[in-house]
């Protein structure tokens, strides 16, 4: 069986890649992609903790399941907003979206 640490290591790589992307990307859609990465890494963690530490339980399993559903909902809304913004401002770059700032 695979050791838990290795899987956590992989999810950590995903998480910090996501953080890096979140902090550095300029396109809003790219930022959203980074968020998906981070969410995914969290999902992996739930599943792996459930599987490796409490094989008879199923809480982490369901948590991951619901998290996927919520992630889907979230990205649907986010993308709808992005499309709307793009329609209005012709731009979705993070540093250009300043219309409602002050």
């Amino acid at each position, binding site marked *: 069986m695979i050791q838990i640490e290795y899987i956590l290591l992989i999810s950590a790589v995903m998480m910090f890649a996501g*953080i890096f992307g*979140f*902090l*550095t990307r300029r396109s809003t859609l790219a*930022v959203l992609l980074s968020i998906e990465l981070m969410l995914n890494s969290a999902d992996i963690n739930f599943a792996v903790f459930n599987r490796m530490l409490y094989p008879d339980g199923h809480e982490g399993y369901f948590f991951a399941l619901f998290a996927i559903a919520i992630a889907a909902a979230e990205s649907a809304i986010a993308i709808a907003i992005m499309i709307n913004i793009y329609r209005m401002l012709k731009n979705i770059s*993070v*540093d250009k979206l*300043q219309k409602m*700032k*002050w």
Partner: protein
Amino acid sequence: MEYTLFILLLPFLSFLFLGICGKWLSHKTAGIIGTCCLAVVAILSYTAAIDYFSLPRLADGSFRPVSPFDINWLPFFNEGLQFKMGILLDPISVMMLIVISTVSLMVHIYSFGYMHGERGFQRYYAFLSLFSMSMLGLVVATNIFQMYLFWELVGVSSYLLIGFYYTSPAAIAASKKAFIVTRFADMFFLIGILIYGYYCGSFGFNFNAEGFAAGGFMLPTALVLMFIGGAGKSAMFPLHIWLPDAMEGPTPVSALIHAATMVVAGVFQVARLFPLWIEYAPDALSIVAWVGAFTAFYAAAVACAQSDIKRVLAFSTISQIAFMMVALGVCTEITTGHEHTGSLGYMASMFHLFTHAMFKALLFLGAGCIIHAVHSNEMSAMGGLRKYMPVTHITFLIACLAISGIPPFSGFFSKDEILTTCFAYSPFMGWIMTAIAGMTAFYMFRLYYGIFWGTENKELHAEHTPHEAPLSMTLPLVFLALITCVAGFIPFGHFVSADTRAYDIHLDWGVAGTSIVIAVGAIALATYIYKGERQPVAEAAAEKFAKLHRWAYKRFYMDEVYQYITHRLIFAHISKPIAWFDRHVIDGFFNFLAWGTNALGFQIRGLQSGSVQKYAFVFLLGILILLFILIL
């Protein structure tokens, strides 16, 4: 006697109704509502008086105070010190109820004619109702704090009514002057109340003796401070300066507030606390006497030289109120009886208050008719008016005779009692007051002749012929004149006396005779000087004593003294530096705070960039730092 509550409630409701809905009412409706309320109040007051005085007397022959209501309104920190609101009926408050409701009703009726067609008619009636409510509340107060509350309400309504013609700068200045001067005096009243409450443990009039004995010197102090408050309201020297200016208000208001009711509040207050004065501060009582005596003399002297008829009446009011104060001040004991002349002053003072309210209201209302007719306050515009205004003439004459102390009019009886008391106190005081009574007769008849006899101002009268006032104005005159004629025969001592036991008024013919002789002499002198078409004697006298005349005409420059003290001394040397301190140091500090916050905000504005990524960066940095702390 629970219905006495309506005596306060009705004018208050009338005030609210007229004040809120007044502008949708016609003049007539508003006036009728106000007058009807007051009529009901007057009827209730009379009923209350009859009910109260027909109650059985106590064993020692005194009246029992009745308190139909006494609600605990504001409980303070300890049990004894509570702020109650209620109604207290005892001889003087019942007497005051009659005075106030009668005069107020007369003024309400009179105002129909006098204020006819004025702008703000409804507002005027609303304020009259407010004043009536406050004044009635003042006299029936069960404790000194309630009295103070209504005292201030009275001050406010006086302020509002003096400034009724708010487009006239003089009226506004006068209303502010009245308000500020009386407020200044009320400050002392409040301090006195607080000292009283502290040592007495109660604000009530039940005069708990233990507390006072512990108070020692503080109780006379409290009483004197309260007297200063009363002196402010009652226009005693040197706080009298507001009253002559208050004549800027409508004349019926002057009759009601500045002659009959509000200005006697100070006298009423001293009378209310009279047992305390006698028991604990008999020495301080002489302050009251001498302040009153000086004020009486000063006001009488000034009244002799004024040319504005309302000013003359105002100074005569001051002088007469001072008479009442003197009467209270010269009292030396509280036990009533024929051998106890020391307590006579109390009764005399209240009696004079009663009669004076009637005849002085009559004088003012008469003056109102005259002003209504000639459209001027100056005596030069008058003269020879007796042909045009017979009713006013007769009633005014009755009032003048009453105030001069000519029998059988009411003023004679009350003034005679005052003089008797003064002679009992000291002959010196007696002679002073007799002389002032003579001066009163002189200036009143100077006024009378100046208005109704003397040279007629033909040009002015040709332009606008004076005419008798309408019925709504003459009716109150006749009514008050009737009261003035008969009030002297009321066995007043049976109802009101220092310890509320019955007392038969009997005339001391020595004193009475002297005062009649002096009054008649003064009237004769006034007749000699002022009755004729020309007045050579008066002009000669004015020329010979030009300086004195000028001083009296200028009211001995009291206003100028006040101007000097307030503007040159207080404003320039105290208020200005304080204002500077306030503007520059206190405001400056807060401006600095605001400026500093603003500047800081500009400096740190950059952090609040609105960029989610920067926020996330800071957030993660924080997490990392926390993580390091946890690991290490």
